[in-house]
């Protein structure tokens, strides 16, 4: 790329958060020819690694943790970026575009990318109890794996995507697994009643005990160790180990005094800009999606990549709104689910390919007459091929009433 193309690009870029979205921002900047200085600040001691395998291959032991690394050391070095790891951002000064870290560093840049992701929510009072886990980081996954062995009574609190995956992986390892949460079926909020019903059958067949439809009010303990999970009904589910998978909170504490608008994430315009020269990407970003006409925040792996690519382009002057069709997948036992688009809870769902009983199908979700999403159950290609219908639905002018 010629020098001209770089004209107007900031001289220094600082990326806060050294994971999927942060790394992709850096790689895309370099790929597009950016030659300025790049610094990446991350609070974890590890080089960037990937999270999806943590609840699957790393937890099951199929992969050694090193395999989750996003890039080799060699590839990272070739990026010619300074990685500052094991140090946390504690404050952002917008006026000077400076970030202060826990160890006292002051990092300045002309453009700042906020890529701090989310942190697992915990049950209050469980922090110091042995046997209680969350799963967000590599260290979490290794601690959980160490705590699991065949015959352990594991209770998974939270019937969302992560909780359902962990239940499946642990059951496959031969643990005695109970899945609990307030909704009536696994992933009911994410995929609606029809598909979550099929998931409920699958988990039951595989021997996971479903104790759904009840809130969890707390844990029981003895001698500093967890002994059970107490439900709103008063009943206690006995446990040797508990995984709490009740969602995550955007890692924005360090921005509290920055003056940026924080509301369930860093609020951004349609170009992922929190303000001139300050961007947010990945799980932490809540930006205005022009196709939907509202703010959205996505917690999925593909968005981390795509949004980072968009923001890198934006930093280099692309000036294009970011309005993706979201995508996520989940693996549970032999079921591979692929979700494109949005599956609103009130959507009308019909099976458009394959069939439910054979557990190989594509379901289409429609809301207000438009296709908003498609879900494939062991039919990844067929699901993807219907993605265009979602794009068309997003492009159509919004109905007036």
């Amino acid at each position: 790329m010629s020098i001209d193309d770089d004209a107007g690009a900031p001289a220094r870029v600082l990326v806060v958060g050294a994971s999927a979205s942060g790394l992709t921002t850096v790689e895309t900047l370099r790929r597009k020819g950016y030659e300025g200085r790049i610094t990446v600040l991350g609070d974890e001691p590890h080089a960037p690694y990937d999270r999806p395998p943590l609840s699957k291959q790393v937890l099951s032991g199929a992969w050694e943790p090193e395999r989750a690394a996003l890039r080799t050391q060699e590839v990272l070095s070739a990026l010619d970026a300074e990685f500052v790891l094991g140090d946390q951002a504690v404050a952002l000064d917008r006026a000077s575009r400076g970030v202060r870290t826990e160890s006292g560093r002051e990092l300045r840049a002309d453009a700042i990318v906020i890529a701090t992701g989310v942190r697992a929510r915990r049950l209050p009072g469980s922090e110091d109890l042995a046997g209680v886990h969350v799963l967000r980081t590599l260290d979490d996954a290794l601690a959980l794996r160490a705590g699991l062995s065949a015959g352990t009574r594991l209770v998974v609190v939270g019937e969302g995507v992560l909780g359902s995956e962990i239940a499946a992986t642990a059951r496959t390892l031969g643990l005695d697994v109970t899945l609990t949460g307030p909704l009536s079926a696994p992933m009911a909020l994410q995929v609606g009643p029809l598909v979550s019903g099929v998931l409920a059958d699958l988990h039951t067949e595989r021997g996971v005990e479903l104790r759904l439809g009840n809130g969890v009010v707390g844990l029981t303990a003895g001698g500093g160790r967890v002994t059970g999970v107490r439900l709103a009904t008063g009943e206690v589910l006995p446990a040797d180990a508990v995984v709490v998978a009740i969602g995550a909170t955007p890692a924005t504490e360090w921005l509290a005094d920055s003056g940026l608008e924080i509301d369930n994430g860093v609020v951004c315009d349609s170009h992922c800009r929190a303000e001139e020269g300050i961007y947010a990407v990945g799980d932490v970003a809540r930006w205005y999606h022009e196709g939907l006409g509202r703010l959205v925040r996505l917690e999925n792996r593909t968005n981390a990549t795509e949004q980072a690519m968009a923001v890198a382009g934006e930093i280099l002057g692309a000036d294009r709104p970011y309005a993706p069709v979201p995508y996520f997948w989940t693996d549970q036992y032999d079921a591979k689910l692929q979700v494109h688009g949005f599956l609103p809870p009130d959507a009308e769902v019909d099976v458009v390919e394959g069939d439910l009983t054979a557990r190989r199908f594509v379901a289409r979700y429609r809301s207000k007459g438009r296709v908003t999403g498609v879900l494939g159950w062991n039919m990844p290609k067929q699901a993807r091929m219907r993605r265009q219908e979602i794009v068309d639905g997003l492009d159509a002018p919004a109905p007036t009433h």
Partner: protein
Amino acid sequence: MKVVVDEEKCVAAGQCVAAAMDVFDQREDDGIVVLLDENPPAELAEDVRNAAAVCPALAIRLEE
């Protein structure tokens, strides 16, 4: 440019196909990536780089 795919890593996301239709496809039965062209022509290089970058499973490696 030479393209290498790792079927074992592939999670059947199909993002690569959306990015570079002429180079990648997916198997009918399990959606795992199928490499249509191991040495794509120069005019597709940028699409292929995009495909590799967007693959959530890092299953696509490029030797340039």
